[in-house]
């Protein structure tokens, strides 16, 4: 049974055969049609075969770089391509390679948040460090010298009597009375100094 393809093959002339007059006339007419189209004078009406051939001719010419698109058309083409890339659903893209345009777009969307988030974290860490920092000697209590963390003279502070008494010799092991006198006198001195410094207040 003969098919349509068989008919087309049958209609294709042998390339070595001399063109007929009708073929030459048809070629001349088509050349004029292409020239008019390229010069922007496309005829309003033409046969379907001619229109198809004309589109093919235009594409071939553009593919050879002989045809430059207007800037507005270039932008439209690029935006169309990007739009298609961006609008592709994520699920549809599973297992597919992410397009460069989509990757850049995602990066552009997220970059400000990444920068802002990182900066905020750094700032929060710095503030937390400052807040939790152990108060240094320079942070002496201002005002009430007995406030928590206040910097006060050593003699105001309750402390071991080791430095005052020193090593206790065996001969003086039972001289606790003399030692308590020394301790009491020393601490009383600190206590009085502190009270005087505070204007007699306890």
């Amino acid at each position, binding site marked *: 049974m003969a098919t349509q393809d068989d008919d087309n093959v049958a209609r294709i002339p042998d390339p070595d055969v001399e063109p007929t007059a009708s073929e030459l006339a048809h070629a001349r007419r088509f050349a004029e049609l292409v020239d008019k189209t390229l010069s922007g004078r496309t005829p309003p009406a033409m046969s379907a075969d001619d229109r198809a051939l004309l589109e093919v001719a235009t594409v071939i010419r553009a593919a050879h770089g002989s045809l430059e698109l207007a800037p507005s058309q270039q932008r439209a083409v690029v935006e169309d391509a*990007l*739009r298609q890339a*961006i*609008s592709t659903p994520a699920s549809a893209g599973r297992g597919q390679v992410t397009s460069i345009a989509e990757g850049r*777009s995602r990066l*552009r*969307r997220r*970059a*400000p*948040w990444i*920068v*802002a988030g990182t*900066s*905020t974290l*750094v*700032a929060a*860490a*710095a*503030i937390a*460090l*400052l807040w939790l*920092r152990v*108060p*240094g*000697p*320079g942070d*002496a209590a201002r005002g009430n010298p*007995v*406030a*928590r*963390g*206040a*910097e*006060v*003279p*050593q003699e*105001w*502070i*309750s*402390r*071991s*009597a*080791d*430095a005052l*008494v020193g*090593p*206790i010799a*065996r001969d003086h*092991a*039972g001289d*606790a*009375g003399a030692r*308590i006198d020394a*301790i*009491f006198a020393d*601490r*009383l001195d*600190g*206590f009085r100094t*502190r009270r005087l410094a505070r204007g007699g207040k306890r």
Partner: protein
Amino acid sequence: MKKYVIPVFGGLPFVLAVALAACIACTGACLISCSGERDVRPPPTTRIADPSDIIDQELMIALAQAKNFHHKSKVYMADGNLTAATTSVRQILSLHFPKAAPEADDVRNDARALLAKLLMSQGQLDEATRTIEEGLAASQRESFFVANLYTVQGELHEARAVGFDATGEPGKAAAIDERRAAIASYDRSIQINERLQKTLLEER
């Protein structure tokens, strides 16, 4: 047709957020670096104190009472009334000192040393030993007063050794043990004194 807006990198809200965060970070870093410089100073003659560290009236009252009990005990001892002297010293142990006052440990340990010596002089070696052991067990840190307790403990061992010697041949072995124990106690006392003296010298 769906309208697409390509986000502008660093749109106004984002730029403001980033700038604010950066400012806060810079300020924090500056403050920390400044505070770090402030901390580099030689050890001061003053130190940071908690309100409970300050010498207050409560501590002075406790010290004054301890002082008075010691004086009272001294008078009794001069009178030869060792029992009353012992009672007076024992009262020091029940004095109320401010919580965590280092002087409390020192005063009590010193009172225990004197009490043990008083008991020893009355022949109450067991109670004297118990007094010393309680003091050593209650001590939170090493001090010259703790070293003194070990010294008195050594004296107690020596007194026991003398007692065993008095029993003749049967007590010789026990006397030797007591003398060894005395030497061990004196060694502990010496070691503590050396460590503390070294620490005090380093602090100066």
